[in-house]
């Protein structure tokens, strides 16, 4: 049996990859500049949160929901085992 697995990549992939990866510092710097406005954004967010909170209180019937990715992050952070997840799912099926 060959020691290598014959994986392939699209034509010109590595050239494209290097270009994309080399752009990371510029993208991250833009993010940093954006973060300078964070205090103003936080103020705006507080205002929006107050409006949302009012809205939530008025519509208490809505159930909280989380995305699958959020659930997965939560499960990983809580150190739960796959066996425990499977047991729970089987019990609640």
């Amino acid at each position, binding site marked *: 049996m060959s020691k290598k697995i*014959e994986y392939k990549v699209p034509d010109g992939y590595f050239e494209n*990859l290097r270009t994309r*990866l080399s752009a*990371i510092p510029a993208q991250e710097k833009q993010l940093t500049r954006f973060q300078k406005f964070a205090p103003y954004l936080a103020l705006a967010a507080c205002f929006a949160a107050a409006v949302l909170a009012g809205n939530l209180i008025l519509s208490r019937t809505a159930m909280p929901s989380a995305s*699958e990715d959020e659930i*997965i992050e939560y499960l990983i952070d809580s150190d739960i085992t796959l066996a425990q*997840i499977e047991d729970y*799912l089987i019990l609640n099926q």
Partner: protein
Amino acid sequence: MYEQQFRELVEKYSEQLYWHVRSIVGSHEDADDILQEVFVKVWKALPGFRGDASVQTWLWRIATNEALSFLRKQRVRAALRFASLDAEAERVIDDDPWFDGDEAQRKLAVAVAKLPDKQRAVFCMRYFEELPYEEISGITGTSVGALKASYHQAAEKIKASVELAD
């Protein structure tokens, strides 16, 4: 200040790191996504890199941790969908349009994908990349003795898995 250094790392290591991640996760699309995250982390951590480890060990450590984190999420996602881990391992290989191996290589790829995450990473670094145990130890923080035992167990499991599939 660090941009030139970062670009040199991209030029020198991005392709090798791609194959390192690809050998662990199997799928091209997943390896591509992970590599982007790896280099974002490299960029953020570059000012704090003090050279305690070699650059290569440092990069491989970040990439391995990112690949392992991805595999953990993939396994939890599969569990939440009641998908069997073995079937999930086969799906990743069979759904990848960028897999070009024959049937024997497919069996090897699937058998590798069925290994526990850390054992899989150790096996890939030793078997496919042929890294010395000392270097794998620097990357994973595991002793050489434990790595040898892990590799031996992985090889036995792969042999059994391939024979079962024949």
